[in-house]
């Protein structure tokens, strides 16, 4: 599940990043595309101001400015030609500077000068439909809006009002009347806007992420269960339905193959159990009649001895069959364990005394070393006893020349919760490279040849008993010759 949360986190940060990028790009576009051409420079107010500044007349103290202008245009002449010219005709002449004229021409605009009495005193390119005289109300009306649909701007110049008009429908004029509070809180509100945008972006990312998570979670759970080899069924719906279906089919295949494997193991184990069962009854008769012959008074001594050999070999076969059965049950994990708390040292002593009670040849000596009496393990008493006897008997069988045997039980110093039982012999030992192979089952691919004198099941059985107890068997060469077998088991603290 942690992986899913990581995906969500990654997804969220990616979304936020994308969102921020989008915001920046949007602002840039807004500036670049929308507000371009909005204010052709110079602005209307600027135009009218400049035009006003460039108008000169004789009586004006600004005559100096007029003298600078070279190309003078007599507005007065134009006014003479117009229809309303009673009083204004007496007015002095006005000139428009070359700059002002160029500005007006650039915008295709006209201009007029209004005197304080509301009469047009001078004009430039004034359309004919524009009145030549204005009342106060008219002046107020057009000062901010339109004059007969001509967008106009005005500028006061001394006693005169300069009015510049633009062609109809070239400029849209809006009047902005904004409360001071609105203007002063504008930055805060812009920030709020930004913040709420971020918040919405975050929420959206979370929402989409959650949806995705919801879609992914069953899949993730499915894959996790797959790795644990549990049966999985993910509802194949949503965007990731295909994926769910593949997970389901992988799960089915896995289950089928593990079932087949289990069935095969079971079949093998049952097969071996069946064979050993079938061997037992005939072997009973071999043993029965052989030992009867062996004990029969009327049979000659030599034949009785031969019958004895048949019996001994029959007994060997009997052990082999039961060992084979036990190893097969352990190998296929079908051996039931009767777990109880055991003191490993007591078990070791029991195995040692069994060995001595059955008569240990004088060539061998058995001694106990460190015996940690506190070591307790959870285990099957019979199996663990069998493991210890196998280790002891293994050392004896492979050292017919005789050797010393040592037994020890101790806790692992470096591994808490683990203990080991050590069987050590001073015998011939085994070449180090051969050691790991001794734990493989005989006649398996890793172990084709058997050491002389054994059926080769003893050590593999010990290893499997150890595995069944979550432990392990380790074989080591002993310095100075011999073999060390360490049976490591989990123990109680």
């Amino acid at each position: 599940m942690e992986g899913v949360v990581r995906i969500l986190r990654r997804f969220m940060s990616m979304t936020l990043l994308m969102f921020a990028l989008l915001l920046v790009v949007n602002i840039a576009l807004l500036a670049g595309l929308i507000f371009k051409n909005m204010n052709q420079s110079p602005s209307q107010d600027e135009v009218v101001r400049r035009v006003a500044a460039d108008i000169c007349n004789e009586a004006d103290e600004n005559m100096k400015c007029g003298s600078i202008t070279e190309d003078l245009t007599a507005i007065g002449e134009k006014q003479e030609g117009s229809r309303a010219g009673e009083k204004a005709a007496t007015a002095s002449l006005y000139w428009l500077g070359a700059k002002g004229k160029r500005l007006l021409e650039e915008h295709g605009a006209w201009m007029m000068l209004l005197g304080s009495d509301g009469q047009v005193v001078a004009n430039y390119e004034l359309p004919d439909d524009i009145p030549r005289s204005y009342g106060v109300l008219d002046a107020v009306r057009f000062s901010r809006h339109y004059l007969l649909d001509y967008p106009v701007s005005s500028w006061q110049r001394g006693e005169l009002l300069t009015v510049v008009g633009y062609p109809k429908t070239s400029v849209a004029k809006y009047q902005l009347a904004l409360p001071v509070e609105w203007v002063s809180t504008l930055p805060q509100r812009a920030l709020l806007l930004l913040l709420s945008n971020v918040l919405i972006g975050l929420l959206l990312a979370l929402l989409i992420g959650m949806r995705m998570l919801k879609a992914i979670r069953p899949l993730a759970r499915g894959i996790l269960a797959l790795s644990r080899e549990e049966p999985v069924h993910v509802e194949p719906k949503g965007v990731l339905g295909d994926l769910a279906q593949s997970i389901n089919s992988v799960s089915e295949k896995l289950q089928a193959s593990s079932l087949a494997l289990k069935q095969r193991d079971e079949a093998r184990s049952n097969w071996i159990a069946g064979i050993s069962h079938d061997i037992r009854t005939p072997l009973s008769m071999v043993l029965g009649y052989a030992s009867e012959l062996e004990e029969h008074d009327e049979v000659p001594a030599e034949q009785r001895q031969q019958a004895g050999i048949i019996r001994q070999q029959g007994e060997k076969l009997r052990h082999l069959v039961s060992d084979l059965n036990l190893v097969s049950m352990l190998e296929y994990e079908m051996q039931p364990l009767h777990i109880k708390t055991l003191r490993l040292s007591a078990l070791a002593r029991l195995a040692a005394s069994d060995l001595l009670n059955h008569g240990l040849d004088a060539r061998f000596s058995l001694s106990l070393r460190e015996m940690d009496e506190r070591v307790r393990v959870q285990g099957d008493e019979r199996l663990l006893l069998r493991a210890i006897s196998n280790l002891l008997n293994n050392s004896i069988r492979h050292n017919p020349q005789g050797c010393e045997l040592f037994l020890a039980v101790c806790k692992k110093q470096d591994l808490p919760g683990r203990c080991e039982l050590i069987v050590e012999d001073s015998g011939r030992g085994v070449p180090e490279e051969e050691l790991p192979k001794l734990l493989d089952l005989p006649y398996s691919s890793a172990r084709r040849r058997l050491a002389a004198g054994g059926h080769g099941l003893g050590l593999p059985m010990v290893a499997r008993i150890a595995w069944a107890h979550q432990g392990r068997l380790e074989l080591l060469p002993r310095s100075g010759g011999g073999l060390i077998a360490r049976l490591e088991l989990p123990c109680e603290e």
Partner: protein
Amino acid sequence: MYNRGQVMDMDMLKDRKILVVDDEPPLRQMLDALLRKEGFYRIYMAQDGASALACIRTDKPELVILDVMLPDMDGFELLAAIRRFSSVPVLYLSARGEDEDRLLGLGLGADDYMVKPFLPRELLLRVMAIMKRVYAPVVAESLPSFILGACSVDLEQATIQREGSELSLTPKERGLLLKLYEHRGRIVTTDALCQAVWGDDAYSYENTLMVHIRRIREKIERDASSPQHLLTVRGLGYKLIVKETS
């Protein structure tokens, strides 16, 4: 149903009726020969569960040797069926050696469980052991008495006769001697001795055990510091050496 209180000697035990249930004719034949050779002569044979039940009802055998795998039912079912009307002792003789089967059989009330292949001697010993336990209980109930060098030990009376004087054994000493005598000539681990006398996993009693062993030696040995009969096996336990005199 069975006259269990009656005291019998070995030969009378061999008058008892034995039923052998096994589906393999050669094995039945061999068991028949074995038992007859040992002195049993009232032997019945059955090859499946149904005929075994019929035989038990009519002939009333006094011991049943039972195979686990029978053609018509398994031996465990058969035992359950037998136990509904009879408490005849049963010895399983099975080709199934798994612990589960062994425990199941014994749990159902079988008197013993043997795994094929078996040695004839072992089978006969076990048959006799069951016979003695079931039909000659009085003898079995008394604790043994035996001779150790110069003294004779009577565990039933918990006394030791030594050079005309009588020493008594404490219950713990008697328990230890009994355990050692049951495994005479063999090593009995300290763990087994402690368990026999103090119960489950009583390793902490090891020092107490040494004290008790020393007291026993003082009673039975000529020289307690160099024992001849109750020997210490270093690191493992103790061993009682008894020279069979009877």
